[in-house]
């Protein structure tokens, strides 16, 4: 079968930001035609690959590697400077989801506009209207203007329209990190459904877990060039270890040893990692009365509080908290972005708290590990490994990890005669 997407020696040049190109007629005339030239760099360089129909292909790479540019060029937006793109079939795109929407329009009006903008005929939107409203879970609000919607509701509406277009090629750009968990799940299911229908999917994501879960193969871009293209596990292993290398390179030579309140020593490259551009200066485990604890009963609330310090403005920080048993078994791993939370830029000194309404871990010893990472998991700012122990006490001793609230119930049959 012919490939669904063929990209041949694709190259795209960009002007450097702050370049000296005139943006008004006056400037252009004053400078003459010399002013029209300016500094450029290659956003994409000599990128070639082909994708068989029905494959799901992920694109990974650090910020500015050219992922979104590649996705748009495949979608026919913009003109490549070298090479070309060939695609076969109707293209759907989960990018710029809110296009055409306006706070004054009602949900119903928005569905028609977004639907037609996404490439559907009006009659097709009409046919699928109920399905779309159903998917967005907005039946009661469909005739209210969008300005009365929460951000989550607006995203749901936009996404619902976008996934009802029946594409043969689907382009997805980092939209899966929005909305609440349940809706994210639904979107992933929908993408999986496209996949079983034989749709070719090209997707950009920063979540290595998502990549491994969805993709058949992965293309790794760096500085606009393809570093690797192959089976997901192979490429992702290399990619993740390369990210670790970046962190190692950015880790300062000398960071003083810190003795923590619990007596543990924090040593760089031993149990502490990262560039230290953001420093986690204190971590406290607090019970429901805001008192620091090291021992907790199973099923009661816990707050993990980290104090950070930075001299820069850190945009889109990623904060993760995980709990492991001494044998290395991972019990819990939470970060803000995968739970749909975007933090404001971090500056100066401040605190970040993660509160569990109840921690239903089985009794035993645990370590709470915390980390702050650069946007899109590019590298680590500061990560503390296995220095904050937490002992969970409980009635029920077991080999399992969880002890949610439970009840036994026994129903007896009639006794034998």
């Amino acid at each position, binding site marked *: 079968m012919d490939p669904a997407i063929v990209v041949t020696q694709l190259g795209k040049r960009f002007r450097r930001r702050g370049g000296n190109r005139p943006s008004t007629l006056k400037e252009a005339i004053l400078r003459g035609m010399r002013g029209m030239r300016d500094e450029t760099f290659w956003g994409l360089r000599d990128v070639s690959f082909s994708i068989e129909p029905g494959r799901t292909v992920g694109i990974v790479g650090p910020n500015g590697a050219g992922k979104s540019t590649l996705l748009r060029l495949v979608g026919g937006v913009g003109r490549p400077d070298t090479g070309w793109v060939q695609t076969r079939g109707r293209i759907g795109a989960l990018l*710029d989801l809110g296009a055409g929407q306006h706070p*004054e329009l009602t949900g119903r009006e928005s569905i028609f506009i977004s639907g*037609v903008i996404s490439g559907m005929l009006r009659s097709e939107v009409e046919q699928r209207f109920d399905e779309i409203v159903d998917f967005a879970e907005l039946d009661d609000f469909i005739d209210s203007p969008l300005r009365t919607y929460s951000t989550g509701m607006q995203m749901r509406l936009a996404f619902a329209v976008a996934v009802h277009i029946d594409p043969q090629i689907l382009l997805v750009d980092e939209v899966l990190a929005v909305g609440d968990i349940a809706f994210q799940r639904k979107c992933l299911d929908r993408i999986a459904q496209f996949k079983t229908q034989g749709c070719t999917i090209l997707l950009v994501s920063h979540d290595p877990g998502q990549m491994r879960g969805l993709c058949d193969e992965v293309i790794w871009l760096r500085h606009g060039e393809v570093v690797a293209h192959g089976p997901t596990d192979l490429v992702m292993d290399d990619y993740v270890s390369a990210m670790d290398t970046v962190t190692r390179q950015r880790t300062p030579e000398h960071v003083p040893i810190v003795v923590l309140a619990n007596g543990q020593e924090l040593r760089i490259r031993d149990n502490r990692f990262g560039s230290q551009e953001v420093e986690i200066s204190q971590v406290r485990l607090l019970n429901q009365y805001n008192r620091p604890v090291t021992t907790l009963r199973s099923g009661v609330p816990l707050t993990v509080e980290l104090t950070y310090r930075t001299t820069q403005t850190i945009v889109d920080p990623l904060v993760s908290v995980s709990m492991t048993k001494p044998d290395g078994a991972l019990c819990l791993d939470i970060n803000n972005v995968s739970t749909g939370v975007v933090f404001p830029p971090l500056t100066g000194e401040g605190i970040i708290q993660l509160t569990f309404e109840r921690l239903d871990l089985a009794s035993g010893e645990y370590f709470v590990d915390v980390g702050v990472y650069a946007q899109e998991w590019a590298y680590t700012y500061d990560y503390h490994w296995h220095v904050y122990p937490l002992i969970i006490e409980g009635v029920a001793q077991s080999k399992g990890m969880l002890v949610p609230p439970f009840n036994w119930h026994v129903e007896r049959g009639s006794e034998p005669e």
Partner: protein
Amino acid sequence: MPTIRLVYVRDLLRELVLRDLKLRYKRSVIGILWSLVNPLVQILIFTFLFSRVLPLNIPNYTVFVFSGVLAWTWFQTSLSMASGAIVDNRELVRRPGFPVAVLPVVTVTTSMIHFTLALPVLAFFLIFGGGHIGLATLFLPLIMLVQFLLTLGLAYLIAAAHVIFRDTQHLITLGLMLMFYLTPVFYRADNVPEEYRLIYALNPMAHLLTAYRAILVQGVWPATGTMALLFVMALILLGIGYAVFQHVSLSFVEEL
């Protein structure tokens, strides 16, 4: 496939025009009637000024100036909005598969709908203010078509130019103001001294207004030769405008 594409562009045009209209008049009490207020006030002023203060002695002046103001308003709003057609729709231009060339059409069509909405009021004046409704009125759609094509050709050029040079908008505002006074909207081209007539001969809007007035005020057929020439020129201009627009449109994404 081409028919489906055509149906799609029609649907897209319809939705985008409706969106523009809805957004402009949402949450306003008299809604779309506002589109009538502006030309009506202008007509009121002109009628007062040029039949009472500085009488121009044009018969049926209200109808005369009404037809002029309506056609001019369509032309002017189309072109002044055309500069934003691409720049203000960044997210649409960046969507895979979106036919960018539809955006200037949306602009010109939206203004045309305002023009059309005012036609009943014009009809009222025609009946009670001494105009003509008859066989010649059937030419109205034809004249509108020529104006549509002409305006669209210019709109393509302006929309493309504004993406590259952001002061196009100011130039257009200035140019339109100048052109307003050099187009016989509230006076008659006959009153212009002989040596300046060339300016009017080269101004397509002057010829269009003459045509509108022929059918509405005098109730006669428009000059066939002039109309045919205007139609051909509008087509040529549209061809050039569209070609330039399509050529430049490949780099829109980077310029936005």
